[in-house]
């Protein structure tokens, strides 16, 4: 079956510029919302999953939803730190960090609204366990001091976090001596300091969590059952990456479900717009349709020509919508992560997968909107079409 030249479909969009602009514009907005939602979810995952190393483990109290709610007694922490699977560093030190994690409420720049920030007191090997972190300005805090180093996102968004300034909590003043860059991971939203100092300050007897590097990633299968069945301990052992992935689940689900539901609802609106436009196109061009059929073009090629027109509209909408969504990569979101109950900064991430998914979505809209009018065009009887012209 020979097709009607594609130029016929595409050029017809150009003749009715206002209608094409409005219809494609509606579809562009829907593609924008769809892509932006997926990008937000991808950005959330990138921030959180990038936080975890595959060969690190996180040990928390059993059933604690996050490190802040968790408590690991000193004795228990010592048991964890003595496990054979834990890697050993260049100087012979065990790569394990017993950490204290709390939240402090600090005012945000601009709005002054107090927001929870994660403060992490590291053990001596804490820095080594996070190779993605490097110092951006100033230096790391000195162990045994009341110095703190803040994540890049915290320095940007919160008052009183510049080099030389101090934050007051736990009845002490903590001086900011540096800003670190954690490559967009969750650590960018944290403040780091010396763990033992913080324990003293907060009068705590128990750590929040124990982080350790495994000598080999497979050894996870050995250490996990052993620690979890040890009668002295009541702990959960997770791979760091899995731990942080779980931290994002609530928010991720919310974003995905709400966002995709909205996209579907919006797409109905855009699809209706496309249907109205295509019905009008068919009605205006019945004479042409009759002539094409008289010349010998089949019903199928008429159908395809109008479907092509609807798809071209959708493609136009997709291009504009995706371009707008791509701009969102410049926007940074900071909000409360419901699971950790603390500030988390992340961004919109455009992946090739999202580009394809949004293309498919736009195409589906175009097809859904165009199929009924195209069928009407194809079903016209030649004499009726010519007479109505």
């Amino acid at each position, binding site marked *: 079956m*020979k097709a009607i030249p594609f130029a016929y479909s595409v*050029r017809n969009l150009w003749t009715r510029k206002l209608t094409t602009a409005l219809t494609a514009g509606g579809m562009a907005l829907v593609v924008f919302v769809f892509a932006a939602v997926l990008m937000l979810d991808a950005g959330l995952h990138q921030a959180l999953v990038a936080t975890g190393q595959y060969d690190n483990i996180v040990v928390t109290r059993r059933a604690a939803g996050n490190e802040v709610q968790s408590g690991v007694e000193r004795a228990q922490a010592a048991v964890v730190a003595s496990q054979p699977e834990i890697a050993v560093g260049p100087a012979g030190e065990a790569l394990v960090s017993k950490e204290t994690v709390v939240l402090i409420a600090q005012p945000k720049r601009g709005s002054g609204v107090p927001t929870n920030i994660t403060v992490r007191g590291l053990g001596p090997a804490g820095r080594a366990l996070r190779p993605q972190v490097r110092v951006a300005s100033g230096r790391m805090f000195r162990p045994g001091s009341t110095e703190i180093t803040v994540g890049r996102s915290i320095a940007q968004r919160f008052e009183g976090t510049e080099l030389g300034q101090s934050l007051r909590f736990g009845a002490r003043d903590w001086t900011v001596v540096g800003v670190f860059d954690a490559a967009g991971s969750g650590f960018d939203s944290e403040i780091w300091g010396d763990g033992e100092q913080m324990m003293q300050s907060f009068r705590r007897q128990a750590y929040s969590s124990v982080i350790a590097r495994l000598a080999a990633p497979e050894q996870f299968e050995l250490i996990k059952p052993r620690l979890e069945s040890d009668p002295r301990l009541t702990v959960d052992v997770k791979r760091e990456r899995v731990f942080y992935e779980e931290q994002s689940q609530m928010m991720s689900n919310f974003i995905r479900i709400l966002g995709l539901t909205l996209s579907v609802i919006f797409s109905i609106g855009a699809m209706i717009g496309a249907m109205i436009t295509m019905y009008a196109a068919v009605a205006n061009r019945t004479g*042409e349709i009759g002539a*094409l*059929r008289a*010349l*010998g*073009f089949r019903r199928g090629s008429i159908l395809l020509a109008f479907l092509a027109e609807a798809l071209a509209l959708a493609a136009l909408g997709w291009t504009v919508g995706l371009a707008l969504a791509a701009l969102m990569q410049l926007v940074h979101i900071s909000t409360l992560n419901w699971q950790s109950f603390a500030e988390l900064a992340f961004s919109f991430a455009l992946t090739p997968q999202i580009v394809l998914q949004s293309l498919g979505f736009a195409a589906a809209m175009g097809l859904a909107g165009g199929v009924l009018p195209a069928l009407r065009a194809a079903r016209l009887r030649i*004499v009726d079409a010519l007479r109505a*012209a």
Partner: protein
Amino acid sequence: MTLPLISVRGVSKSYRRGGQVVPVLHDITFDVQRGDFLGLMGPSGSGKSTLLNLIAGIDKPDAGELLIDGVDITRLEETALADWRAGSVGFVFQFYNLMPVLTALENVELPLVLTSLSRQERRVHATAALGLVGLADRVAHYPSELSGGQQQRVAIARAIITDPKLIVADEPTGDLDRHSAEEVLTLLDRLNVELGKTIVMVTHDRRAADRAHAIMYLDKGELSRAGDIHERSVREARA
């Protein structure tokens, strides 16, 4: 006796309008020879356009047979009929029915898209056809940039590009001024005399009817003949 190009045998057609059955053509029988230039005339609603549609293969009769060059087109099902039209019939409509978004060249090459010719070959043929109708300098113009007469000539170029044996024309001069109508009719005449195309033309226009070799009158779905080839040669002799 050579085989007539068109053989209409006992053809009838009626339409359903709002629950009622309206008869349009009643038991029509006639022949058209190769190389004829036939005019169909009659009052409004006499069924002449309907008859033209049946001969052109864009509608099917309720009863009877239609043999075009030996093929009974009433037996062809839709896709076969479409293919047949593509190779055998050229259309000229009152309102030209060109695609406004395609240039003159692209409009003319449309019927060739249904063949297996390459793009280049199509373009060559289309350019030649436009040259034939005197519009070689307008190949890249859109219909909106052409006058009524020029548009109709583009339509004629489109009608002859597949070298069909039969050309059907439905009121080809209906929307044209006197000068353009004259040009179009001269063109049709040339196609008939020089290229041997058989033409069946529905018209109200007396001037157009004069150009035909023979006229058939339709009234209330039945026909009567008036004038034949004879008349034309007499006129030629007088000219």
